[in-house]
């Protein structure tokens, strides 16, 4: 189990603030957000590579640094570029196997599982394609036979077969009781296999729940002739208002948690002319875009 609690790590105005979520055994947690939202920072702090300003991140109730043999408990893949270009694939695994104290036969198993054949294993990593490096990095993460996986953008650079392979692998891993945390900036990459989604934007968690929960958290999309006036009226009525999908509150559409009827009444009282009014939320993608664009607007 991974428990992240009120984790804060500032880099000037950027970084992560009060990030909290839990990844349970037997589940795949998709950690979603645009590039630079704070996914990698969260994972780096979780793995003891960076210190938090405040808050805690634990695996099995202990900070990563305090795990007696983290490589045997947690498989980590943060950067497939973190391999010596002059070593062969097999040697890269062999060094890690020595550090972890696992059987050498495990190296051959990992090469088989990741689909790196004998000639690929004997090549130097510098000659690998991004996809091959990604496979080797996954083999490295799985080498210590861990119960927890922390993977940053694992599908990056993989071809469609590779993406499918990793999906099957992670699903099976979780179904056997493993805990998986994987990040992505692409919703469609994770929504197929994740049974838990955590969405981060601008360093803050903006959504946390099962895909079903997130789909049913309905909101209403509204367009009006004078969108700014409508936004003011909704706010005056105590409703939360966000700009929709990359727009702004002057010419674009707005999204509110109020139901359509409520919005209609408030608009009528304010004399606002509506041009579009529809409930949304069934579409996870739209929710993702809404959640990950509004914060930027507010911060700007």
């Amino acid at each position, binding site marked *: 189990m991974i428990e992240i609690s009120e984790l804060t790590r500032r880099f000037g105005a950027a970084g992560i603030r009060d990030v909290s979520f839990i990844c349970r055994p037997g589940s795949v947690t998709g950690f979603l957000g645009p590039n630079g939202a704070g996914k990698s920072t969260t994972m780096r702090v979780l793995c003891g590579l960076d210190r938090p300003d405040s808050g805690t991140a634990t695996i099995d109730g202990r900070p990563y640094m305090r795990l*007696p043999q983290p*490589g045997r408990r947690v498989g980590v893949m943060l950067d497939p570029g973190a391999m010596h270009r002059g070593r062969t694939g097999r040697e890269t695994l062999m060094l890690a196997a020595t550090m972890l104290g696992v059987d050498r036969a495990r190296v051959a198993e990992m090469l088989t599982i990741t689909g790196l054949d004998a000639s690929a294993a004997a090549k130097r990593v510098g000659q690998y394609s991004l996809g091959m490096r990604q496979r080797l990095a996954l083999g490295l993460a799985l080498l210590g036979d861990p119960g927890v996986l922390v993977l940053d953008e694992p599908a990056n650079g993989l071809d469609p077969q590779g993406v499918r392979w990793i999906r099957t692998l992670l699903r099976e891993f979780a179904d056997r009781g493993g805990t998986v945390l994987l990040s992505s900036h692409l919703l469609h990459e994770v929504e197929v296999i994740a049974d838990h989604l955590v969405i981060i934007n601008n360093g803050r968690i903006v959504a946390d729940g099962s895909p079903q929960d997130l789909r049913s958290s309905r909101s209403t999309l509204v367009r009006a002739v004078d969108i700014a006036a409508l936004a003011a009226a909704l706010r005056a009525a105590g409703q939360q208002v966000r700009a929709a999908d990359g727009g702004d509150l002057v010419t674009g559409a707005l999204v509110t948690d109020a139901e359509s009827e409520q919005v209609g009444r408030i608009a009528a009282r304010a004399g606002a002319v509506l041009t579009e009014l529809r409930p949304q939320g069934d579409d996870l993608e739209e929710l993702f875009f809404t959640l990950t664009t509004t914060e930027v607007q507010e911060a700007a």
Partner: protein
Amino acid sequence: MSTLYATRPAPMALTPPPLARLIRVELRKSVDTRAGRWLLVLIGLVAVGAAVVTMVAAHANEHNFRDLLGNTGEMTAILLPVLGVLLVSSEWSQHTALTTFTLSPRRGRVIAAKAMAGALLAVAATVVCTAVSAAALAAAGHGPAGRWHGAAAAIGLALVFQILNLLLGVGFGLLFRSTPVAVVVYFAVPTAFSLLTGLITALAGTGRWLDPSTAWDHLASGGMTATIWAQVATAAAVWILLPMLIGSWQVLRRPVDA
């Protein structure tokens, strides 16, 4: 894919990897790339070259074990710090620090393993220099009487000399964490320092206490006195201990750069 779960252990029963295993990994890292292997081959060739040149070109009164070992030691010592630099800086230049420190998050243990692997490589270099010197002397057949005189003491001093030179590289590697920067600084700064203390007579006295090339070379060339031992120690403190302490502190405190 049952192989994924081949040997699930009780997670908390595990103990951290013993230091000996980390040292073995560090030694393996220094020979498992082409660059690393070539550097070791080059060091061996330099030792052979130095011994051959001594036997062929040097005056006959240098045809003794102590001078041979001194010459091979001094020549290989030019490259040994590079080996030490690479032990550390390649983790950053090759972006492997991220992988190393996720597998072994107690960074102090990794640093200790690197320093000890460095010391073992220095022992190996001394063994090579000793063997090459002995072989050169034996191959020459008859020579001046007493040519093996003081061999044991010379080997002991050569060992200290090689370890100091290798650790100098480890310290520079820790301090700069970039292979080109550490290597350039290693070649440039002590030389510049020697030139400076050589040119400015006021600094000459201080230089003997701080300049590794004057103090440490006595280990290879002989003539050790209590004062020279003290000078060896002060130069080691400035050029090895200080960079190691500052560099280690930075590695322990700072986020691991990708």
